[in-house]
């Protein structure tokens, strides 16, 4: 029963949604919109489960003093502070503990929420992202070692494209660089895309027909 109900639901709804794609009628569109709304509602409830997981995970780390446990109180503290500040600060018509910022009177919670997000979340995310520049350099170094014919081809192609971009309008490599990107590179990308799309369709079919049950935790 534990498997049969989800499998039946998947089969029925999978076929219904497939048919829906071919019906432009209003009832069909309404059904699709309702299904999407359900997805959002379920997502909202799942977030509570995610939150419980987050708290449990860090609580366990602190309790057992696992390696790096000191970060967990910070994570939990940040969760509580941001939740309180966000819930109060983002509520309309909530103006507790007002402060004046640039001539505007706002709640201190709104001020803190905006500050934490703008001056902590965004710079920290940007820092992580900027590390990518150094990683690209180290990864490129490894890739461009001419060990085989394929690596030599890769090295030459990359070199041509780099020169074409850096010395744009200086070296006559613009067309060659453009050609490498838009013909051989694009052909390979489309090949991968075509295969992946068919793979996606086949996987969907397997799931709808109940052949693929891995996502339910097993094949039995």
């Amino acid at each position, binding site marked *: 029963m534990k498997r049969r109900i989800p499998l039946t639901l998947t089969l029925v709804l999978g076929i219904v949604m497939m048919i829906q*794609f*071919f*019906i*432009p*009628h*209003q009832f069909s569109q309404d059904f699709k919109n309702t299904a999407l709304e359900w*997805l959002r509602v379920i*997502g909202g409830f*799942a*977030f509570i*489960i*995610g*939150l419980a*997981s*987050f708290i*449990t*995970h860090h609580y366990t780390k602190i309790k057992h003093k696992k*390696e*790096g446990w000191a970060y967990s109180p910070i994570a939990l503290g940040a969760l509580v502070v941001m939740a309180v500040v966000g819930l109060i600060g983002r509520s309309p*018509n909530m103006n507790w503990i007002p402060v004046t910022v640039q*001539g*505007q*009177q706002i709640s201190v919670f709104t001020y803190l929420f905006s500050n934490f997000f703008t001056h902590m*979340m965004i710079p*920290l*995310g*940007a820092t*992580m*992202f900027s*590390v*990518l520049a150094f*990683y*690209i350099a*180290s*990864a490129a170094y*490894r*890739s461009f070692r001419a060990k085989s014919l394929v690596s030599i081809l890769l090295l030459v192609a990359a070199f041509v494209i780099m020169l074409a971009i850096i010395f744009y309008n200086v070296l006559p490599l613009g067309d060659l660089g453009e050609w490498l990107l838009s013909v051989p590179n694009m052909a390979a990308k489309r090949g*991968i895309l*075509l*295969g*992946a799309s*068919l*793979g*996606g*369709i*086949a*996987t*969907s*079919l*397997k*799931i709808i027909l109940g*052949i*693929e049950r*891995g*996502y*339910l*935790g*097993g*094949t*039995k």
Partner: protein
Amino acid sequence: MFFLLLPFLLTQAEVVSPPERSYDPGMDVAVLAGEVDTLQAMLTQVTGNQVEDLEAHMSSMFTRVYTIDSILKVLMEPEELIVEEIQPPANVKVEDVRNDVGNQLVLRWNLSPDDSLLDGYVLYRAVEGKQEFKQIQVLPPGADSTNDNNDLLARMIEYGRDEIASLRRNLPRAKRALPKLKQDAAKFPQADSLVPGIKNNLVAIILGYRRNTVRQFELDMETAKRNAERVQIKIDSLRGEITAEQTEVFTEHVNALASGMVDLQSMVQEDLPPGAAELEALAEETSKLRAKIQGTTVYRVQKLEADLANLEAEIASLESMIANIAFIEEADLEEYAKSRTERMQGLIEDSEGKLLKNRLSYRYKVVAVRGDLQAPSELSAAASPSAQLFHTQRINVLVAMIFFFSLVTFFISQAKRGKNLFLRKIAGLEAIDEAVGRATEMGRPILFVPGLSTIGDIATIAALNILQGIAKKAAQYDTPIIVPNRDPIVYTVAREIVKEAYSDAGRPDAFNPDSVFFITTSQFAYVAAVNGIMLREKPAANFFLGMFWAESLLLAETGNISGAIQIAGTDASAQLPFFITACDYTIIGEELYAASAYLSREPNLVGTIKGQDWGKATIAGLLIVLTVLAMFGIEFAVKLLTTV
């Protein structure tokens, strides 16, 4: 010339083409001469080098300059035509729009022969058999088609309903907040009586449920006062800088500007139609002089004083708003809410009356309009909108789907009958056992990242299918597995999968609920957490399977630094180069979807892989054939390649 043509025009019943450029000096001369006289009178006063006078005069001066400019503009414009009759548009055709939800008709018509003279077209609609025509749309000249649907009307109905709901919700709140507002307003000087113009604005603001209305006005006032102080300081400082020499230069500019206008006056007085080039030159000269004047300190002072005056007006207006709150009563709020609700109900009713309904027949007429002149077209034939039950432009998708499903079903049946279906070796999938084995030997955990996408992404489902096999092996070998998640739903599914895998392996007690956990939905915060896990826990095998974006290399390179064996798989072609560079094995595109079949070798699953391969071969063949046919200009091939 206009007067010369007038008798001729009066004899013409139809539209007459405009004559050569000409202008009527009558009114323009009077206006212009008056302006220039005033200007000259003022100029005699500005020679006294009095800054205050200059500031006052400059304000008037620019009004005059703009007036002269507008006269120049009028002179440059073509003569207005006398049109006594316009021709209607013809051949109005109405059709139902195919493959839609209904409630939509498309209209086409031939433009009126006088299209270039029109203000536009007005579209009217009536239900078949009824005489009452309702105005539906107003269209600009040149429009020869339009879609009649309910989009705008539906938005208006929604707006009206939202507004009514908001009034209903806010009225009691606003009533409760009113005494406090009046109490706050009492701290300010009271007005003698309620200003009618302000009342409605004020009631609307309070009904928008802004219980901090007085405080907000007060803050705005403080800001305006602060700005006014700054402007006053700037004015004082600039006045100190103004020298007699600057004033002299300023006066020269003003005089030059005036002499330019005198030139214009002389041209006008000579009653000669000035040429376009002369007018343009004069306008350009005026513009240059104005720029010079604007660069002077004297002008800047004048401009700042205007700003100051605006700020003072704003302060006065805010004071008046606060003072008037004292006069607002509950009854005012109720009355406003009632009248606004009635207005919104009227809007809703009017919009609902205009809604296009499926299966009802409609007739249309298009009316050409120029000023008071109207020329209606003949009535169109009746047409009714309808919703379709099948999207005819998706037949090709249906055919392709049926073909592909048939292939898959055929190969599944072949596999079930025991036919040996060959699958090529996929190095990345072969290496999964090796990676799990390595982790077991080293006594270190396995890290599995199921991508950063949601459960709606098919790549995530493919990754979760692989997780099942890996988790089962990990359970059998008693190797810890770590599954950090970015999406709460994926976390829930992944947790169940790992738990079931441990049960399947006969070791349900070994499942650690803390091994599958949710981190955050924030992309780079997730990456930071996973990188931390890689560096602290030192997993021996890392699996990055599913959908990835910019974080792919951040994860894979950190894994590489930590020395783990890494297997990555994604169908995001932009991320594949990063994985290929930083990982030991990469599962590319479709191989990710073939993984569960490849690992389990179940006939049903293997059959789908063969079907997938044949489907791909068919599409490749079709693409080649259709491309060749399209190159020879065969329409059918082009249509098939471009139809969605």
